[in-house]
């Protein structure tokens, strides 16, 4: 069960090697979380992540999960929920792709869309149903500012996150009053493996800062969290820029 501050005792991470997810898990384990499920494609990185969290005192188990294989989601996640209540599901998987390359290789672009959007639709719905049956829990969805308005420089990724974001908002409304809380997290540029070697955007942040914002959002039972918080204002302005102007923005 979550405590009065929204901190879970059990956590399921979808995308168990995500740096943001692991930073969040470390934070939550330091507070209350005792049981952690890391769902992801079996890999040494997944095992290493599990080992790291075990070192912090959590009971960690890994489960094979592939966002690109929605048919398997029901079975893979059903197994986790059958073992006991999950207080927090952190939907953290996603890939950035390579915009220039993916524009030439449509099948690669589709992979980005399938991972970030359709995979999340499937895993999100499966998780939501299980959470609804237990009458409590939070579903935290890692979206991105890139989904707020698709930019020339990464509109394939951006559009997939836009779809995910809209889906998660709708799911949150659908679950309102069921005891299940859905929180959409929109980080800006996060310095991590995913963005290594890329030119940093303004208001860049870190996985740890995102984790802090998630903990705060859980306490406040927020529905939307921007990281850093200033992006809420910035993006609200960016959203209303005329297209001609927006196209010429250097970011």
């Amino acid at each position, binding site marked *: *069960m979550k405590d*009065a*501050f929204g901190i879970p*005792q059990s956590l399921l991470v979808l995308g168990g090697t995500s740096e943001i997810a692991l930073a969040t898990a470390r934070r939550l384990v330091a507070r209350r979380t005792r049981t952690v499920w890391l769902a992801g494609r079996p890999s040494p990185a997944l095992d290493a992540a599990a080992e790291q969290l075990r070192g912090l005192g959590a009971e960690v188990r890994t489960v094979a999960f592939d966002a690109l294989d929605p048919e398997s989601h029901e079975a893979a996640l059903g197994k986790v929920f059958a073992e006991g209540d999950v207080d927090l599901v952190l939907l953290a998987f996603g890939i950035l792709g390579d915009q220039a390359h993916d524009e030439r290789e449509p099948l690669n672009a589709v992979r980005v869309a399938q991972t970030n959007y359709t995979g999340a639709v499937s895993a999100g719905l499966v998780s939501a149903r299980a959470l609804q*049956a*237990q*009458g*409590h829990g939070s579903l935290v969805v890692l979206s991105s500012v890139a989904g707020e308005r698709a930019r020339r420089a990464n509109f394939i990724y951006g559009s997939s996150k836009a779809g995910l974001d809209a889906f998660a908002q709708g799911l949150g409304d659908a679950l309102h009053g069921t*005891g299940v809380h859905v929180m959409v997290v929109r980080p800006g540029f996060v310095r991590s493996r995913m963005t290594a070697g890329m030119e940093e955007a303004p208001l860049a942040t870190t996985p740890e800062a995102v984790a802090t914002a998630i903990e705060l959002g859980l*306490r406040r039972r927020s529905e939307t969290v921007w990281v850093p918080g200033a992006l809420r204002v910035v993006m609200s302005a960016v959203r209303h820029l005329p297209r001609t102007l927006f196209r010429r923005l250097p970011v």
Partner: protein
Amino acid sequence: MSADTDWGPVTGWGRTAPTAARLIRPRTYEEAALAVRECGARGGIARGLGRAYGDAAQNAGGAVLDMTALDRVHAVDVAGGTVLCDAGVSLHRLMELLLPLGWFVPVTPGTRYVTVGGAIGADIHGKNHHVSGSFARHVAALELLTADGQVRTVTPGTPLFDATAGGMGLTGVILTATLRLQPVETALMSVDTERAADLDDLMARLTATDHRYRYSVAWIDLLARGRATGRAVLTRGDHAPLDALPARSRARRAPLAFRTSRLPAAPDLVPDGLLGRTTVGLFNELWYRKSPRLSRGRLQRISTFFHPLDGVPHWNRIYGRGGFVQYQFVVGEGREEALRRIVRRISDHRCPSFLAVLKRFGEADPGWLSFPLPGWTLALDIPAGLPGLGAFLDELDEEVAEAGGRVYLAKDARLRPELLAAMYPRLDDFRALRAELDPHGVFVSDLARRLTL
């Protein structure tokens, strides 16, 4: 006819951590038994008037039995001073009914809006704990609907009684109870008020003269710092005898009339953070200064003396949507150093708490999970949104456990489960009895899940 059923989110009085449950409102014992039989895989828990601060009367995904429709008073023995009533009867109703007959409830907490079932389940205490003990000490018998569908008559001195008193509803659904009452001559209180300049002064006064009063409590200013740390206002008293009432007054003509007053309810949309350090600091300063340095024998209504907050319906809304946490712990006699340390830490942390009370408990009560221990108990409310509060309270828990103390389950919404066994040494007995009485875990609450009770 089946009981009214409704599905929706439920919270405790602190309005934190809502979870959804099927709310069932049985109107007969048969409907209650049926609800227990059919509560499904996620079990059920009885709920009264929802005054437990945390998640004691919540059951995510399962059934919550709202017992307030079972509210009949079956028999009052006016000569002997006992009452037999349904568990859903509130203490407010009992006062309305019994005061004109010259009887008062044996123990009342800071609100009259609790049910008899809840009072036993949480084994509540009041300002008279040092004299009268907890609520369950005044229960002559109760009827308990257990997981097997049986209704058992449970009497004090049996393991089932001791598990049920303070058992947070996890042994079954209390249907009725027979209570022993307190005789009174009037419906007024004779109250002495005095100020204490700091915590040591306060403890000295409570230790020296508590035995002279049936009721005793101190409001403590936890925002005061430096030499004033722990400054307090003591209010102590007893039921006023008839001859204490002024002749030819309205009170004298109807000495047993139960009078209350109510202000408008607190609005639902209060911004979070209204009760910050500044506002609460100001309130505490005024409250301390407006209290008389010393006054004796002032007459007060029962509602004013015991239940000042009941005058504002839904007062819990003043903390805004974020809700609040109530932290209550007890440390034993001789552990005054721990109490001093904790009070200092709270004051250093600047917890904006305006409802903090300190009280001296008497003998411990027989309930296995009953809260009181002979010693000192401090209760405070804190807005749940205060940054770093979770970690801070965890540190206080360590101090409390270290000193052999415990926190109060009826108020808890955040205790670390690992500390529970140290705080409640009879926990294993409780678990063993539950495993035998309710092997399929029919009775379960969010509190029970969170702390693996």
